[in-house]
């Protein structure tokens, strides 16, 4: 299970708002990385049922369907590299390429036997100005998680930085995310995912301008090779898209190199 929310600035930035959510990849990251010589292909489908309207020069999120393809290659038992292709589809614009990101990630190897899972992700990418005034962004995301019995906890206190765009002087932004879930059965896990953007770490945005989202979500563990997640997000603050439906479907390809140690 992983969750990460790509923070692509979509709002007008003339107010000291937190960076708005792009709603391209809404997922919490777990500490686990993709196994060596294995490729994980995921499709993130997010529909904003009630979002922001278009502003001059910036596309709306309202009624937008965002499809993101994520391809992650496991390098060894402590690292992976992910690559994203973001697209958006909405009335009047058709299907649009939004941008691409690359995301290397390292973890504390499982064999170190730490009591919690720990990894560190960094993500760099470009997005078209039509969809984000901040066209080049960077993120660093510490990830800590823990599975205990039927419970799963994860926290991602991510920091973001705009490299090119109106927010370039805003400095580091704080975009934490967290997840708690419970295994109802071996195949069905349910819980809550929380995503936020508090704006600059030196000037926390007002609640009005913060992004806050809560997703009741389920994970279906139908097979070790498949990853399925579904959730409905509620955004109560003015700067947040109010209703989002998200789904993730992913498949692992081991190319015949599956760990046969059992």
């Amino acid at each position, binding site marked *: 299970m992983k969750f990460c929310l790509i923070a692509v600035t979509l709002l007008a930035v003339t107010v000291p708002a937190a960076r708005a959510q792009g709603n391209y990849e809404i997922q919490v990251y777990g500490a*686990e990385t993709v196994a060596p010589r294995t490729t994980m292909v995921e499709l993130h489908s997010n529909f904003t049922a009630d979002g922001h309207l278009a502003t001059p020069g910036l596309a709306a999120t309202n009624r937008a369907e965002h499809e993101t393809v994520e391809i992650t290659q496991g390098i060894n038992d402590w690292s992976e590299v992910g690559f994203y292709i973001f697209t958006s589809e909405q009335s009047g614009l058709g299907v649009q390429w939004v941008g691409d990101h690359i995301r290397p990630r390292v973890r504390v190897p*499982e*064999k170190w*036997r730490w009591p919690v899972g720990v990894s560190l992700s960094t993500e760099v990418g470009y997005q078209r100005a039509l969809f984000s005034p901040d066209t080049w962004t960077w993120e660093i995301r510490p990830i800590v998680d*823990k*599975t*205990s*019995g*039927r*419970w*799963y906890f994860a926290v991602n206190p991510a920091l973001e930085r705009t490299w090119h765009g109106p927010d370039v002087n805003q400095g580091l932004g704080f975009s934490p995310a967290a997840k708690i879930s419970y*295994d109802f*059965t*071996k*195949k069905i*896990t349910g819980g809550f995912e929380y995503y936020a953007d508090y704006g600059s770490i030196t000037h926390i945005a007002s609640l009005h301008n913060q992004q806050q989202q809560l997703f009741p979500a389920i994970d279906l*563990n139908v097979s*070790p090779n498949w990853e399925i997640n579904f959730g409905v997000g509620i955004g109560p603050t003015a700067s947040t898209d109010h209703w989002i439906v998200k789904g993730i479907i992913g498949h692992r390809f081991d190319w015949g190199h599956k*760990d*046969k*140690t*059992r």
Partner: protein
Amino acid sequence: MNQDPDSAPDYRIEIGEIDWELSPGKKLRTAAYNGRIPGPQIRLQAGKPVSIEIANRLDRAEIVHWHGQWISPDVDGSVEEGSPMIPAGASTRIRFTPRPEGLHWYHTHAMAHRSLKEGLYTGQSGLLYVEPRANPGGYDREQFVVLHDWEPYYSASDDGSLMVKYTAASVNGRMLGHDSPFAVRPGQRVLFHILNASATEPHWLTLPGHQFQVLTLDGRPVPTQAKVEALRLGPAERVTALVAMDTPGVWIMGEPRAAFRNAGMGTVIEYAGCSGKPQFTPPTRLAWDYRSFADPNPSTYKPDLTVPLVFTSRFQGHGALDRWMINGKSWPDNAPPLLHEGLRHRLIFDNRSMDDHPVHLHRHAFELVSIRGAAMSGIQKDVVVVEAGTVVEADLVAGNPGNTLFHCHQQDHMDSGFMALFRYA
């Protein structure tokens, strides 16, 4: 054996914590017997009583099980059967008459529960060899081989529950490349006595360019001494196999699966006059079938009783071990049927779970009579790997009255309810 309690015992076993060097770069602290891994080899003669003193220097109670021996429940080394635990700092002396012959072992029978620093995760195991009256095969040398995995940790498994993995492995207490090579000469016939003492892992063993002629399984001679390219040993299984040294070179005898071999599970076999880097080539395929060593004719005996034993598991969460059940209940809530002395019981091991289980019956041996519905006879064992989704039938002639423990020999399964106690009527 001297019955005088003040006299010296035939053997002494001291259980204590040691710092052990698997390799120059890999040291670990673990409990072991007599300060070494594996513990001292004990060679006994069938029918000749022996006294063994066991001193527990640990800060927790311990117990030593005499695996494969048909002895009394009070000394077999299982609390469930009635053997007493040895309190921390205390000593005890046990006496028994070894039987049957063959390759067996002794090991801790303490529960580890969620601790990965107790039970068979430690170095508390050693070989027990009861000298056979007849030589099992013409050989020039014999070599004892004990496989073990080290530094366990919990990890997510493919089937959604936790499993135990390891970072290191050893043969006779050393990682591959860090023990003296086993020196052989062309033309020699070497008798390998092999034990898988891993807490949870089945292991394969191959020697490139050579074949293993299997003579015994769990210390009992097999009807068909078939030659195989690779041996498979579930946890607690033993194999005695003859190898003709007819391919000179410097070879790795080790796990064909690279992950285990790279973790240290292998040893070097060096022919006289050969040198260079040890070579390893994996076998073309890994296949193991008990029937290869059996009498292909079905058992002619009809069972007096049948004893179905259905293995299932209950999911406890992705961050937990499964709960294991026999006939729908976990230890200690299950109660298998009574055994009747002198009668032939057909044990039906029906594994409806997604894991293989090396199931072990204390103080007895059973004869395999069918696997996956294919009839066979002639193989007597005390551990059999019942593969996921399969049924194995085995005949037990109840001939050793007393409480008799039956369990999966995977430490994590045993600790999670996969045990049952047979009682005699």
